[in-house]
């Protein structure tokens, strides 16, 4: 197998005056060339730290990482020609430059000839619907447009491996779709390109990625194709239960015999409990607990498993749930 990215026992500890945070706790990652690879995990899981190490922005505390066969610590100069990184969710850019000027400058930082770069920038602006903004100042762009421009900056230099850190975070639905579409199109142009993207959106990982690593607290807890990961919870029945708001119920539900895992999210003013039931009889026990709580049942559905369910089963809680000490 042709490996694009490989890490061994990768570890990163942040030290500040009075505490240590283990952001990566022994990560072994293998990404084959040509894949759209997703790193999925909740906030604080260590996704950004991993990306930063892989793009030579941050040194690991220990362990090893190779990108395109090059060591990220010692061969960083050569590596930088072959990669690009784009982070979402931040208002970046040299505000006083025109959009196309800023993009051109980055093509120059990558040592590319000027004329073909300009052509490529024009194409990409067109593809992402930014042609009209080409001559506008960066500071005049909406945050969604800036994020698209930032994606273009990552694409124009034709990286062998593209790193996207939460590329659609904070984008509206339309812009997020444009970004995902562009990633697909860019990958389809050349089968030897590789994308590694982090996300905490289940749907994004499911829809966009060939393979996914689920990370939690600095560790990879599962890895596989989205279908394989969902397969892991296939033996359970997944039931969504919409309840009126009320006191804490999750622990009581988890304690019910036959409930393999449970999580809760808020949705339209209701609490949506997702339950993984290892046998149908468990539903009776669940209903008794709900009745005892005094909450109203507003809806019950059985549905197909998602990556979120896989995460809940592996980690014991939902992605959006606050971690409990």
């Amino acid at each position, binding site marked *: 197998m042709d490996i694009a990215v490989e890490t061994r026992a990768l570890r990163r500890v*942040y030290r500040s005056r009075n505490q240590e945070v283990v952001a990566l706790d022994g990560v072994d990652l293998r990404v084959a060339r040509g894949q759209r690879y997703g790193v999925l995990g909740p906030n604080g899981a260590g996704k950004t730290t991993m990306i*930063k190490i892989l*793009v*030579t*922005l*941050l*040194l690991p505390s220990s362990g090893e990482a190779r990108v395109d066969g090059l060591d990220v610590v010692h061969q960083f*100069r050569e590596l*930088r*020609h072959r*990669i690009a*990184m784009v*982070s979402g969710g*931040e*208002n*970046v*850019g*040299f*505000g*006083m*430059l025109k959009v196309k*000027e800023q993009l*051109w*400058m*980055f093509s*120059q*930082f*990558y*040592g*590319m000839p*000027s004329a073909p770069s300009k052509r490529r920038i024009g194409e990409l602006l067109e593809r992402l619907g930014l042609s009209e903004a080409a001559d506008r100042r960066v500071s005049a762009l909406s945050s969604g447009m800036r994020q698209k421009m930032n994606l273009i*900056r990552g694409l124009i*230099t034709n990286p062998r491996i593209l790193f996207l850190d939460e590329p659609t975070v904070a984008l509206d639905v339309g812009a997020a779709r444009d970004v995902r579409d562009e990633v697909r199109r860019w990958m389809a142009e050349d089968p030897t390109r590789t994308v590694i993207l982090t996300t905490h959106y289940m749907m994004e990982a499911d829809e966009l990625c060939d393979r996914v690593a689920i990370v939690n607290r600095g560790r990879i807890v599962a890895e596989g194709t989205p279908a394989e990961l969902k397969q892991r919870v296939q033996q359970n029945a997944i039931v969504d239960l919409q309840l009126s708001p009320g006191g804490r119920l999750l622990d009581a539900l988890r304690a019910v015999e036959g409930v393999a895992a449970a999580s809760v999210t808020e949705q339209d003013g209701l609490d949506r409990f997702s339950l993984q039931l290892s046998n149908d009889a468990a539903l009776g026990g669940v209903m008794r607990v709900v009745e005892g709580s005094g909450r109203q049942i507003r809806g019950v559905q059985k549905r197909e498993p998602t990556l979120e369910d896989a995460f809940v089963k592996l980690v014991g809680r939902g992605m959006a749930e606050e971690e409990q000490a």
Partner: protein
Amino acid sequence: MSTAIRQWRGFKAATRLGWQISSNWTQPLVFVLYSVLRPLSAAFILVVMYRVISGGGANTAAYLAFLVSGVAFWSFVQYGFAGLSNGIAEDRGEYKMLKYVYTSPAHFYVYLLGRGLAQLASAVASALIVLIVATIALGLPINPLHINYPLLLAASSLALLAVIGLAMAFGVLLLQARDAHGYGELGSGVLYVISGAIFPISVLPGILATIASLSPLVYWMESIRRSLLGSQAIRMFPSLSDGDVLLRLLVTTAATLILAHLVFSWADRTARQKGLIDMETNW
């Protein structure tokens, strides 16, 4: 494609970026006015202060020439040093682009060099404006036909290298600070005092005078005055010939560059170790 061509492209783009950032924040007319008025008013304040203090003694004219030539060329330090070291902090904090520049194949040195050299045009313009206006207004003994241009150019080129080296090291060192805003002025202010720009270093207390005599900026200032004013210059090093001054400038510049390189490398590695290149700051 050769590495040199790639780096050259990066260098040119960095220079352009530096120029755009320093000039493009306002209307062109406002920028020109600002560029003219800022150095003139700084020089004006010093001249007035000196006149008030000295009360127009016998040596006034010679010292005014000393003062004005120092202040005029100080623009190189101001623009180069403050401009560049603040620029690194801005790239990180305000524009949040430092991480993208840093992980690009453009050598960080090359990028910063380009970003710093972009200030050169402003610095030269500023120095010329102050010199011309002050020479006419104060009747300084500067005659453009009698300037020792080779000495002026050689000394200023060396000093420019030293300033940019110091600024790069200082700027990368500043990445350690969460809010690196304003330290650039502080750094150039310190250099101002120990460079002989506004008074001879002999008036400094002992230890500072010794430190100053190790700084290339002092020999640069001395060379500037000798090349502009010839025999009328107040000399900080009367016993040294022009060649000796230039030699000292060369040696101190070389030492400065070595020191700057060591500091830069250390700070750069530390920044990568601690994740400072994209640290969230207080902008």
